[in-house]
């Protein structure tokens, strides 16, 4: 019996599937980046996506968020087929992505970055006629979001460039958490961080799950993945090699499946 079907039996069958991909293929000329991959994210879970370099992790995420258009295959959100034209469509549908380079304006302050592209305007004439930003409300909401996520920051009025790498990552994750209605996708959120900062970001990811959102976490860091993930989706050669859980498999097992040393 494959590891894939084994874990399916083992996990709670009642939890709903939020985001699904069926037999998705993506080719770039002669290169096949995704070779009929399946994907399944359930409500309220942290799903880690692991795989060797070039296994197709990033392409899978891009296909799921509309950043690339699959050559063939189907993507379903809450059971209904979707065709995102671009990342903005996915955002409107309630999917937030934390990009590896964080997508921030370094000279702007934390609150401005949290609300970048989604600024709040004042109520009444000041907002409708004079188009005035409601800076106070944005600061308050930013502060509330950060404390709800229990993430420690200096002042909300600080420029993002004055923050440490971990704090910046925290702001990017908080932005996703603040606006996501269904799920948050993160590409290597701890890749550039030290041990303590990594711990803080993992804590953040757990708080997002506590808010009832599902999380997709791409990571190379096996100890992190085993610490935090509910399930682990293993990519190999553009396909899903297996889905396992930290309970059912060891890190060595996962690495073996990833590299093809063991057939899943």
């Amino acid at each position: 019996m494959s590891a894939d079907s084994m874990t399916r039996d083992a996990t709670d069958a009642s939890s709903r599937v939020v985001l699904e991909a069926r037999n998705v293929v993506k080719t770039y000329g002669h290169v096949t980046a995704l070779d009929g991959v399946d994907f399944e994210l359930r409500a309220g879970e942290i799903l880690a996506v692991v795989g060797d370099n070039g296994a197709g992790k990033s392409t899978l995420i891009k296909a799921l968020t509309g950043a690339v258009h699959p050559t063939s295959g189907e993507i379903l959100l809450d059971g209904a087929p979707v065709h995102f034209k671009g990342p903005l469509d996915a955002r409107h549908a309630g999917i937030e992505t934390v990009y590896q380079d964080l997508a921030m304006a370094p000279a702007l302050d934390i609150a401005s970055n949290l609300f970048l592209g989604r600024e709040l305007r004042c109520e009444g004439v000041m907002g409708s006629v004079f188009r005035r930003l409601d800076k106070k409300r944005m600061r308050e909401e930013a502060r509330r979001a950060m404390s709800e996520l229990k993430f420690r920051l200096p002042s909300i009025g600080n420029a993002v460039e004055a923050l440490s790498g971990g704090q910046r990552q925290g702001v990017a994750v908080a932005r996703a958490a603040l606006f996501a209605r269904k799920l948050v996708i993160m590409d290597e959120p701890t890749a550039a961080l030290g041990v303590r900062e990594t711990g803080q970001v993992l804590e953040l990811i757990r708080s997002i799950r506590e808010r009832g959102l599902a999380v997709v976490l791409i990571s190379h860091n096996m100890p992190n993945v085993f610490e935090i993930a509910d399930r682990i989706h293993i990519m190999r050669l553009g396909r899903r090699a297996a889905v396992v859980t930290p309970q059912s498999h060891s890190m060595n097992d996962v690495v073996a499946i990833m590299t093809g040393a063991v057939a899943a």
Partner: protein
Amino acid sequence: MSTATIASQQDTPSLKARLLGTPSVGPLLVLVAFCIIFALTNPRFLATQNISIILQQTVIIGTLAIGQTLVILTAGIDLAVGAICVLGTIVAGKLVNLGYDPVFSMGFAILLCTGAGLAAGSLIAGLRLPPFIVTLGILGILTAALRLISEGGAFPVRDPFLAWTGNTMKVGGFVLTYGILIMLALYGFVWYLLNQTKWGRHVYAIGNNPEAARLVGIPVRRHLLSVYLLAGFIYGIAAWLALGRIPNADPNAMQTANLDSITAVVIGGTSLFGGRGGLIGTLIGALIVGVLRNGLTLAGIDPLWQDLVTGILVIIAVALDQMSRRRN
């Protein structure tokens, strides 16, 4: 739990942090220092009449520098400021001299300037050409075209409406031209846009990190287009202010407007790399240039030295900007 209290305690940065973080404090100190030096060496410097003159001399560069600030904040540069402004003076003057209604003439000239801004913006945002090259090209085209239109020479423009911005009023001993008031109103308006609206936020975001701006859903190209359009409109208004100061349309005028407006912006603390700085600094920067030229003139120093000192100031300002970026 403790994290929540820490986050809420320091909602707004301390006064010291805010002063250090405000880019216009440095330029303001420089302006005050120059004023003190000139006042001490020449009692005439602080006379109300001389202050009025400084303001009047600052009007055109000060206004052009508003548009230049917008462009530089998006990490661009505008080398066509002077040429577009001269386009405005020549077209308005020509039309009036041909007998057209002065309000129509000036309005049409401002529209043309706005169109020139739109053309620059289309090439920069649409074809993704570098702003430096596009505006340099427009400078060349306009300069040649304007010399053809005006048959090479300057011509007088005598019309009360076109000269209206040069009219004066007295405010507490100070003689202010309407041009000064229009310039200040433009500063207020654009300051509001930059600091209190989404539009302004997005100007900063694009200058800071265009890729991030795109990823968060800001229509970067359309936004750039609107920046160059507004800048062109402001250069058109500057043309009206220029006719109020000197009732003359001269295709060879404003040769130093590029350097002077960039100087005002850079001395005012706006980064040539985009995304940092602001209009208050630019107003101070324009005043620094005005005070410097006026003070040195009062001291009887050759105008060549004025250019030299201005040049040194620009280089110092750019070097400071570069150093602060390296630190980050």
